[in-house]
């Protein structure tokens, strides 16, 4: 496993990317005793426009908290996909929501599409598309163990059992579909 992972979660405002990023970071920090940073970039005009969160996970202290070279990019919207597809290197992977990203381009990086939003709708709540995606990322990259993320979900929704259950299911769904590839 690499010593340092640089992950970008991208999409549009309102998709819960920060919340999702913080699950990853919490899992890394609290349950795997790693270092992690999370930064987000947003403007006043973000409602519905491009947003991203940079997550860095490392065994050592992290200095510059922005992603310099992407290892994993998640794109939950076409604008987000378009921004990264030409940019990222061949050793990176790009995962996108095939329910929303419809115009696919060639890229140096490997890319994988999953219908996260459709799957989320099946689970009864499209807001968990991000967590399904998270499951997929974990499965594919191995950056974190499933337990860590499950524990992070449990901590986060301690007082809201229903939300916890939904998110757990979403994570499992992500792990499941990524296993299929």
């Amino acid at each position, binding site marked *: 496993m690499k010593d340092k992972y640089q992950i970008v979660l991208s999409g549009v405002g309102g998709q819960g990317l920060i919340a999702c990023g*913080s699950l990853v*970071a*919490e899992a890394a*920090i*609290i349950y795997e*005793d*790693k*270092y*992690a*940073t*999370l*930064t*987000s970039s*947003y*403007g*006043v005009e973000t409602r519905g426009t491009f947003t991203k969160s940079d997550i860095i996970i490392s065994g050592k202290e*992290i*200095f*510059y*908290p*922005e992603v*310099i070279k992407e290892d994993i990019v998640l794109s939950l919207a076409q604008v987000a996909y378009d921004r990264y597809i030409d940019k990222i290197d061949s050793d990176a992977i790009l995962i996108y929501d095939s329910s929303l990203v419809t115009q696919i381009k060639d890229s140096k990086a490997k890319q994988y599409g999953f219908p996260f939003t459709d799957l989320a709708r099946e689970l009864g709540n499209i807001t968990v598309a991000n967590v399904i995606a998270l499951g997929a990322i974990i499965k594919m990259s191995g950056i974190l163990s499933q337990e860590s993320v499950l524990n992070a979900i449990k901590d986060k929704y301690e007082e809201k059992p229903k939300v916890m259950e939904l998110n757990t299911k979403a994570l499992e769904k992500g792990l499941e579909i990524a296993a299929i590839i």
Partner: protein
Amino acid sequence: MKGSNKVRFMQGNEAMAEGAFAAGARFYAGYPITPSSEIAEISARRLPQLGGVYVQMEDELGSMAAIIGASAAGKKSFTATSGPGFSLMQENLGVAVMAEVPCVIINVQRSGPSTGLATKPAQGDFMQSRWGTHGDHGIIVISPSTVEDCYYLMIKAFNFSEKYRTPVVFLADEIIGHLQERVVINDIDPEDIVTRELPSCDPEDYKPFEIGESGIAPLAYYGSEYIVRLTSSTHDESGYSNSKPENADKFIRHYTDKIEKNKKDITIVRKYNLEDADYAIITFGCTTRSALEAVEILKAEGKKVGILQLVTLWPFADDEVLEVCNQVKGVVVPELNLGQLIREVERVNKKNIPIVGVNKVNSLSIHPNEIIDKIREVEKCQR
């Protein structure tokens, strides 16, 4: 809170608020403003749990006034804002200086001037934090570069404030304020919390501005046996208006001297890789992280580049900066502004070594490579 001595994942703004509570702060008055609003929101939720008070004032002028009032009434007090609000606080910041009332003002800097770009980072208030209010005065300004700093340095900020009876500005920036990262929160030893010296004399003899042995006048609180007279006017030891030249001289100098003369105690700097460095980066706040990353990269190339991080921005660390300037062949000063800190470095630099800025005001952070480029430029200045 999950308890103490705990590893946590925290946001800078959250850590500032929790640091303040750990320092004993029990009063927050503020007016929301991006990118500092989380500090208000957390304070609104947490303070009543701690028996403290959160109040949203009608504006920043009132917020600054209210924390001064609350502090005089005996509660450690703070506020948080960003550029536009910080500008509005300047007049009453001067009251805290003149009446010598401890308090902490957090400024999470954003891109300016004026309304600017509310959600974007900058370090454009470095000079303002020192000179923003009118008239001669001293002030302590502290700047964090990690989320852990937000917590632990906040305690320092309150401690300095209480010890020196002075407002302390906690000059953060959007990057650190919104950054979330790993922190280890330790139990704070009560010994490490400083609370203002109370008077011990006979209440009849108490003078709220009589400078004691410590160099600072003990400060009683409203409602105590000691009658406290505080004022924004030039005053005598008892707190009465006084326009005698000797008196003005004494007190106006005191506001600066009590800070400058305790520089040793107040100055916090961090040195990385400086021992045998050929070049140095002098930096503060979020930019320190870019510098650290740059140094790591340069290290791999075999270059000897060190960092002097100013944690205490004001009083300015003349001695420490001079030492570095005397040691190295050139200095790079990266800042998210058009050159503020660099002016101070230039002032202190006696040997005329090249000092080059990396100045960025496009609302993005400084990429480590931008610093590396300047280091190479400075190298070329050497014949």
